[in-house]
């Protein structure tokens, strides 16, 4: 019990004193996972919208790939991205192995299918006749998709929360492609694993509290937006 108490105390001390090391780790977590979330929204929402709203040969197959992707094990993603970015790998020439960029790529691969899957489900549950109604109001194809996405805004915000939640808390892929290098690629989750293996439980607990506070803060903001969207 004392250990947990110590951990909480230390977390507060680290936060209050604004420990630069901790702040840097937390900031990098937010930056990497934030960037990966934004990228996955840019690809996942259009992809999910196309899968949810249109009919084309092979749609079901792609949809089942996306649904499978929603449960992609991060370590498998880490392995595949490592193979590609490895010095002798197909993309080795980019020299981004063990950089935040590599972590963004891995996290993007984890979050994108989640965002696409949620978007697909959100757009599919819209009344199909609503589409005809919007077209009859005078919407072009692009305007139609935009209006439909606005109609599905509540589940879409859930998609953002699910995507961000999956990668901010992910450790396997970040460890494998980032390497947990202090000051460069160390994020909250990889740091917790590191501190834990060193027996620095108090420090690990402190980082865990910060991680959870961060996740809570982001989801709190998104929930506020979502519920305001509902009330509006």
């Amino acid at each position, binding site marked *: 019990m004392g250990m947990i108490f110590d951990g909480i105390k230390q977390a507060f001390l680290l936060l209050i004193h604004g420990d630069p090391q901790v702040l840097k780790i937390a900031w990098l977590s937010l930056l990497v996972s934030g960037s990966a979330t934004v990228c996955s929204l840019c690809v996942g929402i259009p992809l999910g919208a196309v899968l949810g709203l249109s009919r084309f040969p092979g749609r079901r197959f792609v949809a089942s790939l996306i649904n499978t992707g929603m449960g992609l094990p991060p370590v498998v993603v880490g392995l595949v991205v490592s193979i590609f970015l490895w010095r002798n790998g197909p993309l080795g020439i980019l020299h981004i192995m063990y950089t935040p960029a590599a972590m963004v790529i891995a996290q993007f691969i984890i979050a994108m299918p989640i965002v696409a899957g949620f978007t697909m489900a959100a757009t599919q549950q819209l009344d199909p*006749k609503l589409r005809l109604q919007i077209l009859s109001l005078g*919407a072009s194809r692009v305007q139609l998709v935009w209006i439909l996405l606005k109609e599905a805004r509540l589940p879409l915000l859930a998609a953002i929360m699910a995507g961000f939640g999956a990668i901010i808390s992910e450790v396997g892929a970040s460890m494998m492609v980032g390497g947990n290098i202090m000051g460069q690629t160390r994020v909250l989750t990889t740091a917790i694993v590191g501190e834990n293996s060193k027996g620095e439980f108090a420090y690990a607990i402190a980082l865990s509290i910060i991680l959870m506070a961060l996740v809570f803060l982001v989801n709190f903001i998104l929930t506020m937006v979502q519920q305001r969207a509902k009330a509006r």
Partner: protein
Amino acid sequence: MSQAQTGAEPIVEAKDLTVAYGGQKVLDVPAFQVYDNEVLGIIGPNGSGKTTLLLCLTRLIKPQTGVVFYRGVPVLDSKSVLRLHRKLAVVFQESLLLNSSVWDNLTAGLRLRHVGAGEIKARAEKWLERFGIAALARRQARTLSSGEAKRTSLARAFALQPEVLYLDEPFTALDGPTRQALLEDFKGVLGETKVTTVIVTHDRNEALALTDRVAVIMNGHIAQIGTPAEVFSSPANEEIASFVEAGNIIHGVVGAQSGGLASIKVGEHHIEAVSELPVGSKVILLLPYDDITIFMPSSATMTTSARNRFPGEVVRMFPIGSQVRVTINCGFPLTALITRKSAEELGLKEGTRVVAMVKAVSIHVIGRH
């Protein structure tokens, strides 16, 4: 209506429309016209293709074959489809409002059509007012009752000031009093705006009250097209007659013919009706429910011009609003629609012996081929 007869240019015209779902042809309409300023009804049973025809005319779906012309110009590519959409308005059975405020719903289409801000405000205010929902402008659409939502949906359509207004069973999902009040408002607005209107309905009263012309669609084909009076009193065939519920449908054979007055054999009975069909022709008789008069046997001896008198027994009484549907067994079943008051005055109940009368001129004779 008059234009339909004088051969004026139609505003909307469709040629050789066919639509098939999974190899099954659901619509086959070689030619269809909508004329300026008319209110055209499309009626037919469920699944007959009414809605599919409306979706083709509006080009909200693309027919497998055929072309829709708008003011003589074929609507082919997606650009011209968009231009077409921006000239029309559609109201569906479900109100299909956007998940935002009533005001947003009224203005969304106007914004898509690049109408100026001042004009948008003026039109939205006008039509909210006209449909009695000005107080609801700030309300969220999903908090509206079904009647309020339908009013919003209609106000949204009229605010677009469409050149052609399409309605797909707009009043079907509403309860009686809500529906009646809205129908009256809607009729008033139609009269004021004189907008060219195509209304899909399966309610004959709606069709009678609103339309100038009615197209009956059966199994994907246009079975008859004409004024409501023509369609409801002279259905082209038995299928239409039974759909429009115009009256009793009785099969018979012309037994005698004397100068346009045919005596038609129905089992052991004879019914006189106006028809030139020769003796031996198989016919279907249509005896409109409200053209059948019921007398008590004691008073039925009095002189009347009605050629047909059928003594019988009341077998069923079914009240509908202020009216009662009385079915009499005269050797064949005959249903009459009379007022509740008449039924009370005659003291009608199941088992009462009565005489049903119908004038020969009230009977519509359809030849069977």
